[in-house]
Every structure is written in C-alpha cells, then in structure tokens.
C-alpha cells in the first residue's frame, strides 16, 4: 500500500513537467508549427526560474520568470518559423542548442561554476499547486480549443492556414501567439523541474522530456486531455525506476533509467500509424 501511494505521488510529480510541455506541444502543433524546441524552452524556464529565485529569494517570481523565458524562446521559434520561413525542425534544433548552451554559459556567469547552480529557494511543499495547475490547464485548454472562437481559429490554422486567411484573419499572427504560448507552458514545466521538484538547475536536467512530450502529443492524438493522459503514463515509467530500484535484482538501476524512453519509443511505434496529425502541421504558410 505504501509503495502504491508513493508510486502515485511520484508519478504525478514526474508527469507534471511533461504535461506542461505536452500542452505546449499540442497548442503549437494544432496551429501548424512542430515545436522541436520544447526541450530547450524547458531548459530556459528551468534555468531562469532558478536564477531569479536565487536573486530574489522569491520562488514564485522564479516561476513567473521561467514562464517568460520559455515564452521568449517560443517567440524566437515563432518568428523564425513564420516571418523568416525557416524550416521548423532546423529552427527548433537551433533553439535547443541555444537554450542549453545559454544556460551552461549563464551558470558560469552567475554562479561562477559549471554544471549546476547553487541551491536556491524552491517552492518546497507548495509544489503541489503546480501539479494541480497542470491538470487544470489541460482541462482549460481542451475547452478553449474546442469551444471558443480562438480555438476554432487555431485548429483551422493547423489544418489549412489559407482558409484562415480567406476568412480575413492573419494565420501568421495566430501561429506566433500559439507558439509563444507553447514556449511559456514548456518554460513553466522547466520551472517545475528546477524549483518545484528540486532546488537547483543543472545542465541536462530536462533529459529529453521535451521530446517525450512530443511523443505524448502524438500518443494523445493532439488533444490536451489525451496528451495529459499520455504524459501521466510516461511519468509512471519514470517513477517506476525509483520505486523499483533495488526491488528487481536482475535489472540494474542504470538500465531502469531507460524505461521512460523505451516507453515513448513503443508508444511512438504503436500509435503513429493510426492517428492523423493536423494537415498543415509543420508546413510553413
């Protein structure tokens, strides 16, 4: 029983940053932009949250700063992908390198030490607010996308941006906003990693969660609630490695680290053939 409740709590904690990033991925892709840069946007959020919390001793400000930092990274991708018609995949890869490299550089500038920040003020027991918020945002986003004029326009934009233009709206503006919002959500996920779950930023701490989130988007069929459910599944596999550590003698702990990634691979192979992406996903307008 104890193990089970520990597993549930740990699953929710591990799922939370993936949920935020996956929700970001859903918005971006529904508007027609593949956000390969989620990983970097998470790193930007995680790093910024840590240093702002370090500077101000106010973790809440850190969280807000993480959202802003992720949003800015999202804005860069949005502008590259819309105004400059850069290949979205190439641009996203660039963003990932910029954010990871920028954070590594920033660590040395701010803390004078490479690899990891000093310990900072974290949310502590209040982290659960962000866990609940993740699920609340998932529901809100589902509602926004399916019921509101904005949601209809975003969906139309991801399917056929020319239809949006024919209706007298600006598809590029819609995409810019959606991708910026996507980055802000990923940044929030990153902030949770650094000052929600832990109390520092370290290089590589996002550990591919941005890409796992992309798998969750596909697994969840581009729906906020579906992507959230998929994120919880991936969170479960991440949690399992901690809970099972030392309990399965034949499987070393190092090998168990691969669990969430293998789960994402299997999900990717098992599901993609049977789902349909937005028709203009990844196609520049």
């Amino acid at each position: 029983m104890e193990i089970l409740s520990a597993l549930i709590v740990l699953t929710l904690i591990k799922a939370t940053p993936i949920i935020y990033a996956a929700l970001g991925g859903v918005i971006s892709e529904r508007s027609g932009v593949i956000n390969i840069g989620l990983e970097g946007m998470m790193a930007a959020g995680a790093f910024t949250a840590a240093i702002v919390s370090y500077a101000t001793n106010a973790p809440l400000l850190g969280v807000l700063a993480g959202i802003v930092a992720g949003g800015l990274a999202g804005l860069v991708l949005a502008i590259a992908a819309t105004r400059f018609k850069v290949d979205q995949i190439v641009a996203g890869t660039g963003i990932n390198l910029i954010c990871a490299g920028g954070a590594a550089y920033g660590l040395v500038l701010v803390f004078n030490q490479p690899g990891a920040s000093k310990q900072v003020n974290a949310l502590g027991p209040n982290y659960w607010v962000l866990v609940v918020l993740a699920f609340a945002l998932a529901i809100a986003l589902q509602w926004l996308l399916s019921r509101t004029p904005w949601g209809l326009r975003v969906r139309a934009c991801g399917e056929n941006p020319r239809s949006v233009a024919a209706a007298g709206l600006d598809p590029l503006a819609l995409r810019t906003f959606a991708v910026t919002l996507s980055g802000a959500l990923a940044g929030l996920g990153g902030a949770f990693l650094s000052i929600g779950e832990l109390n520092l930023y370290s290089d590589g701490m996002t550990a591919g969660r941005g890409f796992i989130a992309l798998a969750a988007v596909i697994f969840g069929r581009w729906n906020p609630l579906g992507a959230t459910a998929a994120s919880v599944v991936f969170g479960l596999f991440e949690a399992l490695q901690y809970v099972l550590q030392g309990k399965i003698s034949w499987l070393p702990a190092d090998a168990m680290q691969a669990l969430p990634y293998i789960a994402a691979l299997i999900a990717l192979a098992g599901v993609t053939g049977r789902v349909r992406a937005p028709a203009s996903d990844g196609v520049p307008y």
Partner: protein
Amino acid sequence: MSVLHRFGGIVAVLLVIVLMSLAMVVAGTSPIDGFSALLTGALGGSNQLGETLVATTALLFPALGICLAFRAGLFNIGAEGQLIVGALLAGAAGAQMHVAAPLAIAIMLLLGAIGGGVWGGIAGWMKARFNANEIISTLMLNFVAASVALTLVSGPLRGPLATGAETAWLPPQYWLPTLIPHTRLSAALVLALAIAAVLTWVFRATVFGYELNAAGEAPEAAKRNGINIARLTWLSLTLSGAIAGLGGASIVTGELHRFNTQLSPGYGFTAIAVALVGDLQPLWICVAAFGFGILESGGLAMQASAQVPKDAIHLIEGLIILVLAARRYVATRIEKGQAA
C-alpha cells in the same frame, strides 16, 4: 544566387567571431585576448593542431552520417547515441579479442559501423514500418544508448583496473596508427575524409544517391517515380547510423584506446551544426568540421584564460543554425528586391 547565399559559410564565420567577442566582453575579457587564447590553443603547435584534428575527426563522422540522413529528408538527431553504441561494441570487442592486430582493428571498426547502423536502423525501421517520427525516436534512442552503455560498463564490461565507468584498455597493437608523431591524431582522419569523398561520389553519380536526394527534396514526386521510400528510409538511417558508429569505434581505437561513458562531449549534437553549416555537402562539411574542431580544442584554452565557458559554444552553434537557416529567406527577399 545572391552573395549572401553563396557565402553563407563566411557569414557563419563572421557571426561566430562577433558572437564570441560579445560573450568574451560579457565575461569581462577583451576579445583579442580571448581569440588569441583560442587560436593558440587550437593551432599554436603540432600538439595543439593534433588535438584540433582529433576533434575534427570526431565531429566529421557523425556529421557525414547526419548529412546522409538529412539528404534523404530524415532528421537524424540520434548520431550521439549511434556513436556511443558503435564505440561500445568496438571497445568491448577490442578489450576481449585475441587476433592479429590489423584484423582486430578492422573488426572493431566493422563492429562500430554495425552497432551504429543497428541503432540508426531501429529508428529507420520504426519510420518505415509504423511512420514513427524519426526526430523523437532517434533522440529517445540516445538516452537508451547512454543507459545501456552505463549499465554494461559499470557491470559486466567494466575493466578490471578501471576507476570509472569504462572498459579495459586495448593492447597497443590494437591502436590505430598515429598520423602526427607524439599527438593523439590517428589514421581515423584519413578514413573520415575517404568517407566524405565516397559520399560526394554517391550523391553525384549513383542511382542510390539520386533516389536519396529525390526522396529528400520531393518525397511525393519520388514515391510516384519508382522510388521505394520505405526501403530508402531504413537504408539511409542505417547507413547514417553506421557512419556515426564508425566514428565512435575510431575514437576507441584511435584516441582513447578504451570505451568510456564520457567518451563524447556531445559530438553527435555539434555534428548537426557541422552538417548544416557545411550545407549538407560532404566536402564543405570537412571544412566546417575543422572550424568546429578549432572551437572544440581551442575552447578549452579559451575557458582557462578568458573565462568563457566551453559550453557557450553550444549557444553559438544554435545561433549559427538559426541564422544560416534564415539566410535563405533573406537571400530570396533580396533577390526579389533586385528583380523588381
């Protein structure tokens, strides 16, 4: 073609200089000191040049592999994992084998190519069979590779005298010959350049290269003109991984002489920038790899004397990728402006 487009490489170099100067100023060093530290560190003597070429070699293999996949329209960002698996297989075999030296080296390189090829091929098979996005799968496979390598070299494959997570050392007769005496530069550089030459020929002259380029440029037209996209997908990701894996094996037999989990400081990721800066042309990629080799080896010296962290290089790589990608658009805009 506009000037901007043709001289994209030069634009990239200028950009690097400007950005790095900026980074140095922010860190409180004068750019002159920083760059002199960088250049002395990278090219100041045969030892330094050797290290620069070692880094060039290590980047060149995965960059060429990535180039092959990108040409086919497949975004392989798993070169890091493919390199690790290739190196792991080569290192494990090399530490256990007892055969004649040249054969041993050949076996290690072959196993490296097979390991990387299998790792890339998994993603290729998943894409061809299930249409699984190769960007996500190759990246996930990076983590799986790291975890597999760590598990094996912390346990069964760990060298008896090893201090960290690494295999036993290869006997010296299993080492690739060095090119410059008293440096770590091995014949692997020649192998990498040969692969670049072969790839150039494959892209220009062969049916396979033609079909690969067609699939990358216009997949629908390729599919409708007798090109088997599924076969091409798994084949090119397998070959792409094999080249990266060969690079991993060459690091083991040519440079480190054992497998170590810290063997790559992200060569597979930097190689993406190398391939893009080289405009997906194998010969230009060789030039780009040398440029990045300077950054890699001179970066350490710069870090010591100018307080600019080596990791800042990733930041610069990312910016180069963005700017080079955007330059196509800017160039077309300028062309249009000139025409009108």
